């Protein structure tokens, strides 16, 4: 649904743009394609490695790590797993739901979901290309600890 909206918006603006100025539109398209090609080879490698890493964590293994009895150790481990993996949300949420039903705790799932979205260990090399080493490190480290905080709050609120 979201993708369709994005395509609709992009195409509409593209048509308006080309009516107003063909040359400018060509430049804009070229820019977009180049920016995409700029990250494409690296992303291909990153996504393949994430696939390999992911094959080590099936729902069973994850449920063991993040059981509701696992406490803070489980929370931290979940945050580490979330930081390393890179899964689309439409896969991550149903998976998290499955882990919950297999005995995962809310706090641990909170840490996993939050770090999955905010921390990107695998994409750090790409992030550095745009923002440099220091900002990438600082941002990811703060996001990691923030994920633990989010987990704590979720553990208190969701029962």
């Amino acid at each position: 649904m979201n993708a369709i909206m994005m395509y609709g918006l992009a195409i509409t603006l593209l048509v308006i743009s080309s009516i107003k100025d063909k040359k400018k539109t060509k430049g804009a398209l070229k820019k977009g394609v180049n920016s995409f090609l700029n990250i494409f080879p690296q992303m291909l490698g990153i996504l393949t490695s994430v696939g390999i890493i992911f094959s080590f964590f099936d729902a069973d293994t994850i449920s063991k790590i993040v059981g509701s009895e696992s406490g803070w150790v489980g929370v931290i481990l979940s945050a580490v797993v979330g930081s390393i993996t890179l899964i689309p949300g439409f896969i991550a949420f149903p998976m998290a739901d499955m882990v919950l039903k297999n005995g995962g705790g809310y706090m641990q799932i909170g840490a996993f979901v939050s770090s999955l979205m905010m921390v990107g260990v695998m994409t750090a090399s790409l992030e550095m290309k745009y923002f440099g080493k220091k900002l990438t490190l600082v941002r990811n480290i703060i996001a990691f600890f923030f994920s633990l905080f989010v987990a704590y709050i979720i553990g208190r609120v969701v029962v």
Partner: protein
Amino acid sequence: MERLKKYRFFIIMSAGMGVLYLINSKMGESAFHMTYISLLEMMTILPPVFILLGLLDAWVPKEMMMTHIGDKSGIKGILLALFLGSAAAGPLYGAFPVAAILMKKGAKFSNVLIFIGAWSTTKIPMLLFEMASLGKVFALTRLIVDIPGIIIIAMLIEKIMKKDEIEKIYEEAAKM
């Protein structure tokens, strides 16, 4: 040759996946499946993001960006950054090139960080999906903690980074 070098990482990892399949076919299949889904996501969701990025670069003048999301944009800039990030689609790595264009156009550093934070975690369509999977309480709690969290993190990072370091990031972005 130069082009091949760019894909070295991918080639090595693909070979690794092949080896994994030979050792444990179930794991190999699962690795392939995950990679396939992520690639599919990248190829379907990112193209419009990059078209919009190109249009933004071509049409939105620097002055306009500076007044709305630049150094003196105040709370309006914060809200706009939150909105832009939340309205976006796609994985976090798609936000980096867009953020670079925002910097090139003179967006305030903390607003760029807020934009990245919002893109990573408060995307509206994802929120609906999260509610359906994990429940309203879970999703809304996360959202309520995340919004102030994103803003505080942005300000904290701005404090930690030195002025010349930020300037250097902007210089790099201007070359994009």
